[in-house]
């Protein structure tokens, strides 16, 4: 259900994925419109992360169609990469670049105008200004999660894909995340996320897609 007459930013039709004999996703359909947030919920093993991995191209689905901005979603396409900002658990870091250097690199790679100002702003927003010169391995897991989230906000995006972004965030961090996602929606971005946090779902979701129980 899109709720708008506009073409959806993301369209998923008949998404199907199995691991061996176990069917994780069976004909999943949903759309994400600009300025809205769709949240995938469900118990562990219900296929939330699998669905996100199929959308981001990390996994190849067995069946189904994925469209981003009306075009078939091919993550090999630089246009798709430029439009889709992804924060999943598999985000790696360069071991020898500091927190601020990571964000500076992403901002410049995406040719953001005035990258320094944007990076400073986002770094301050995620509460890592004091850790700007630290290497990722010396950050706590929560700080690394904040850095990963910051990486999505220092570059252009039309669709934000997040896999359980509330993990390892403290209460203050969760409040910040809720506020940030609301701001993203107000700016016209589409958000797709998987979450176990009732607070986050209640605060942000315009559409909730419940995935089935694990068998």
């Amino acid at each position, binding site marked *: 259900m899109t709720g708008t007459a506009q073409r959806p930013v993301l369209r998923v039709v008949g998404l199907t994925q199995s691991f061996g004999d176990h069917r994780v996703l069976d004909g999943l359909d949903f759309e994400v419109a600009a300025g809205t947030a769709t949240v995938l919920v469900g118990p562990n093993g219900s296929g939330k992360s699998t669905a996100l991995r199929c959308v981001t191209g*990390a996994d190849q689905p067995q069946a189904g169609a994925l469209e981003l901005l009306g075009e078939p979603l091919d993550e*090999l396409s630089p246009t798709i990469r430029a439009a889709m900002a992804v924060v999943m658990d*598999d985000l790696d*870091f360069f071991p*020898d670049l500091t927190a601020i250097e990571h964000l500076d690199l*992403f901002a410049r*790679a995406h040719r953001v105008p005035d990258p320094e100002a944007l990076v400073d702003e986002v770094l301050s927003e995620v509460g890592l200004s004091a850790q700007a010169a630290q290497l990722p*391995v010396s950050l706590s897991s929560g700080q690394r999660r904040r850095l990963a989230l910051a990486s999505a906000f220092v570059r252009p995006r039309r669709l934000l894909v997040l896999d359980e972004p509330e993990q390892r965030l403290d209460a203050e961090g969760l409040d910040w995340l809720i506020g940030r996602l609301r701001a993203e929606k107000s700016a016209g971005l589409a958000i797709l996320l998987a979450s176990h946090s009732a607070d986050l779902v209640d605060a942000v979701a315009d559409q909730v897609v419940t995935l089935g129980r694990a068998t």
Partner: protein
Amino acid sequence: MRHWRRSRRTVTLSEAVQEVYIWLLAALMLGSMLVSVLVNVSHLGDRSCAASDCTAARSLLPWLAVGTALAGCWMLARMLGPVAVSPGVASWLMPTPVDRGELLRGRVRSTTLLGAMAVAPVAAATATLAGYDVSDLLLFTVGTAALASCGIGALAHAQGRARHPARLLAPASLIAVGAGLAAIAASRAPELGGAGGSLALASVAALWVGVVGVLLRAQHLAQRLRVADVAPGGALLPGVGGALASLDLALAFDVVVAHGSRRRGAVTAVRGGPTGVAALMWRDVVRLLRSPGRPLILFAALLVPYAMAAVGGGVVTLVVEVLVCFVLVIPLLVSLRVLARSSGMVRMFPAPLGWTRAAALVVPGALVVAHGALCVFALRQTLDVTPVQAAALGASAGLAGLAAGTRWVTGRPPDYGRPLVSSPAGGVPTNLYGSVLRGFDVAVLGAVPMVLLPTSGGAMLSAGLCLVVVAWLCGRK
């Protein structure tokens, strides 16, 4: 208690004796085969190495090899501690009021002796190849083993101290090796005889007195060690051990790099630079400025092909150059390693997969190709080629080293999810054993055309093959 002890045994005494017998027999057989090979190669060297440059270089070989082994041993010791404890000991025993000296003295002693055991075979093998007689060989082996142990003892003394001259041992050893190579390259290498003489005997005796001193003072050395001094090295070992157990050398590299980053903790951030994929290239430039030792070592290693050329290496000089570039480009490929080992980072960049990874090769590639091109004088000296051909061959050798390094860092770990091959050690992934040779396969692919055809044509063929390999490795999903 007797029942509990006896019920835990898994082999009988006779089975244990049988196993020991088999191990001893295997060690003797393999050891004698190895000694036989070394002696035969030594005799071959006696017959074929007649020119003064060659005999001088041959006499220096044991010292250069031992110097390199000592540097490696001491660098490894510094990286680990040299005294290290497992995470379990660090968590459970170190915080208790147990006597640290008693707890750690065994580790001090074993690490000290381990250094001797690591260097002794290298000394013995290379002294055999150099044609030392038995007494000189034994003295050389025993002396360098003692030197290794003394160095580790000094590093144990330096452990936990901010500044200590022992930290200069490994660099000093490498500088000495470099001086030896420079002497060979300049055809000024002295012809060193064996390690005999009363002075040598006295030196070796003094070194072993030092080793005994370290062993006796182990408890005193260990008493002042803090958890922060011994835990990080111990935390490194399980990770590296696990990676090596699966023969995943690239994973071991990741663990070591992460360990180094953890020890640094923070650095002065450098911002700015170009946009687009050039931003990745700029980051490699910043890395070089931040760690100038790496390019310094790369260009200091030019001494190796020049030394090989000075002793009449011929086309082997090209092979040596390829291998030198292969080994020394790997620390420069950290960016590519991160982009290759998971899809999480590479999808952050708005460029095709191949372009993003290729951008991480530009700066390291420029360095190794320049390294190869700078071998032009060495190649002209040892091959009958024009300057242009020599430069082409050298640059292609550098490119082959880059391709081999790219193969190494982008290799995939053993995949236990695929069908396995049955072996006496159990199920083995099909790419497990090949992972050890990863990189060397491409090095051979790049070197063979130049070895068979040491001309511009061979250089172009080699470069073409290497570029195809690099393009495929960067572009594969």
